[in-house]
């Protein structure tokens, strides 16, 4: 009652102000937007450009990279998410893409649930999703700072990144600073588990892949990760993590792969940031792979037997972003990837380095225009130059990004 009194008094005090002005300009049912049960959004990505390499697909190896001279539409992403009930949230990403021949492909990129109220600071995720390995692997292309996938992630996880069907358990440590430990357990087969039981593994070891069944838990793929973060100052934050991916590969019936990674992200943002600008960020990831290849018949000539050996690969990328003024970012990325000599000389393990400056302009939060140049050096092939223009638009629910 007392409150009614106060409201009445306050309104009376403000009688000079037109009461009608307190009404919405037009009556509208609020349920249409924020109260709906599901967020729906669509991200469309178009690339346009040219490369000195006529077979662009051999140079731009990521699935969401520009892949021909001229126009590419490598990613049209329909995202749905919402709260399922008091216990779960649900997410799905359905990706439509056009290949180099203009044929449409559809993939269920992600479809998973996430718990909201497990005890003990635990959280479970289950379904099909990107493994939380390092920093960029779980990000969708529209969150990337460059038009293409880093070389080292392509080497280790293939053109689409590391994702599969499984579960992930995460624990937020009760420390005063952020520390999260997690482990993902996935099926180890398929094209999106490139370093593991993938049909595309001949590209790595040169042999005919063997049929391997899942005989026990050891034949699943395990992806542990620990990440920690501190605010260095009012304006600077550092996030570091280490990840691993351990599972079987199909060069032989008992062959295994281990991938290790370390990642770092640092960001400075002005105390008086307007629309998030100005800022400077630095991001780097280093990965190393130990791939035990069994004795195997060569896929090129089955009469040739390739020896039992360990294939070692490593690589890294580092990128600096500078958000000069609202809606304008200039960036520079340097990267290399390299594999130690082996019986089969794979193109996809040869030493390669690339330097990519770019500039991105956001006409609004819902669109982006990017111009990128790549200086690309492939050992044994030579230098290539590419220029890519990227345009992206977002429809529907407002994007929200993790740090």
């Amino acid at each position, binding site marked *: 009652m007392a409150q009614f009194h106060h*409201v009445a008094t306050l309104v009376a005090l403000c009688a000079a102000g037109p009461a009608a002005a307190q009404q919405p300009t037009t009556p509208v049912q609020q349920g249409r937007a924020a109260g709906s049960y599901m967020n729906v959004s669509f991200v469309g990505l178009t690339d346009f450009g040219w490369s000195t390499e006529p077979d662009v697909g051999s140079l731009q190896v990521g699935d969401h990279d520009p892949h021909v001279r001229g126009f590419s539409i490598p990613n049209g992403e329909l995202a749905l998410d919402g709260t399922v009930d008091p216990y779960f949230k649900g997410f799905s990403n359905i990706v439509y893409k056009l290949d180099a021949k203009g044929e449409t492909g559809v993939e269920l990129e992600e479809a998973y649930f996430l718990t909201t109220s497990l005890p003990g600071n635990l959280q479970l995720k289950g379904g099909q999703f990107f493994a939380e390995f390092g920093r960029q692997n779980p990000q969708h292309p529209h969150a990337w700072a460059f038009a293409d996938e880093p070389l080292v992630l392509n080497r280790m996880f293939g053109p689409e990144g590391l994702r599969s069907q499984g579960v992930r358990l995460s624990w937020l440590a009760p420390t005063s600073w952020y520390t999260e430990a997690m482990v993902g357990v996935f099926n180890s087969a398929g094209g999106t588990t490139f370093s593991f039981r993938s049909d595309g593994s001949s590209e790595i070891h040169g042999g005919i892949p063997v049929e391997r069944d899942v005989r026990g838990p050891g034949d699943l793929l395990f992806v542990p990760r620990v990440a920690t973060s501190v605010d260095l100052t009012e304006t600077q934050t550092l996030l570091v993590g280490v990840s691993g991916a351990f599972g079987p590969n199909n060069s032989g019936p008992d062959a295994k792969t281990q991938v290790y990674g370390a990642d770092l992200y640092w960001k400075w943002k002005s105390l008086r940031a307007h629309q998030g600008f100005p800022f400077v960020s630095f991001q780097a990831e280093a990965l190393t792979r130990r791939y035990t290849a069994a004795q195997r018949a060569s896929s090129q000539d089955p009469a040739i037997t390739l020896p039992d050996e360990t294939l070692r690969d490593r690589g890294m990328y580092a990128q600096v972003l500078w958000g000069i003024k609202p809606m304008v970012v200039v960036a520079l990325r340097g990267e290399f990837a390299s594999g130690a000599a082996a019986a089969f000389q794979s193109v996809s393990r040869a030493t390669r380095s690339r330097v990519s400056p770019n500039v991105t302009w956001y006409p609004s939060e819902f669109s982006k225009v990017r111009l990128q140049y790549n200086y690309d050096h492939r050992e044994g092939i030579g230098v290539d130059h590419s220029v890519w223009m990227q345009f992206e638009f977002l429809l529907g629910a407002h994007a*929200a990004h993790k740090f």
Partner: protein
Amino acid sequence: MTTMTLRTFTTVALMASLGVATPVARKLNVVATTPDLAALARAIGGDVVDVKALAKPTEDPHFVDAKPSHIVTLNRADVLIEGGAELEVGWLPPLLESARNDKIAAGTPGRISASQGVTLLEVPATFDRSRGDVHALGNPHFMIDPVNVHLIVGQIADHLAEVDPAHADLFKANLKTFDATLEAKLADWQKQLAPYRGGKIVTYHNDFVYLAERFNLEVVETLEPKPGIAPSPAHLAKVISKMRAEKARLILVQPFQNRKTAETVARQTDGVVLDIPQQPGVVPNTATYFDLMDYIVRTLATAFAEKT
């Protein structure tokens, strides 16, 4: 040790470890997305709550980074106060997802959405982003209207009492004190601005409409052509001619907005750029909502007196 004593011992040890025997009185962790909401929570919660704000007072509240330290803060929160109406849509959802704290889930006593219960202005009739980043639920910059603040502190007191019933009387008493001061202050602020009824202002973003409504001022133009769209030379030329025609001379900017653009416009319109933060603590001695509003009203009244 007999079975009996062993069992007793175990029970006592278990109870002690669960904290059943000695409930420790600790302060309620209240997290507010922005410092203005935090200031209200401090006024109502008094010294039985610990209040933290996620956004800094000087930064654009639409574009806060979803920093991992915020995940930890939200994980430990007993109460979360958000502005709502999509103010934090770009950064709060991923933080809450990672924070895994169902005490602050939507619809629980631990979650306060300030915009609920406030009548929002500029609710769009159609959803069309060619008009800029218009918020579907209405303009979220409503804290600058004292009547809205009155409604919000009432909500805060109700929720705090529900989460911490032991201190319900304290929250009620603090609310009463706050509302009494607010009533007196509002009368005073109205009086100070009364001579400038219909006074014309220009703002950078469309973030002072509630102030204009309450104190009978008129927002003539915004430097942004549309919400979230950077000022273009063509639009600024239009603003300048409109300001000259209507003799509008006050340009209000928040600390994170581009003051240089505002100064350029002011030079060509015999205008003045006023730094009007909507968050407490940016200007010295504005830690509370009352101090902040005192500053805003005084600054406006002085500028109107000098420029009109």
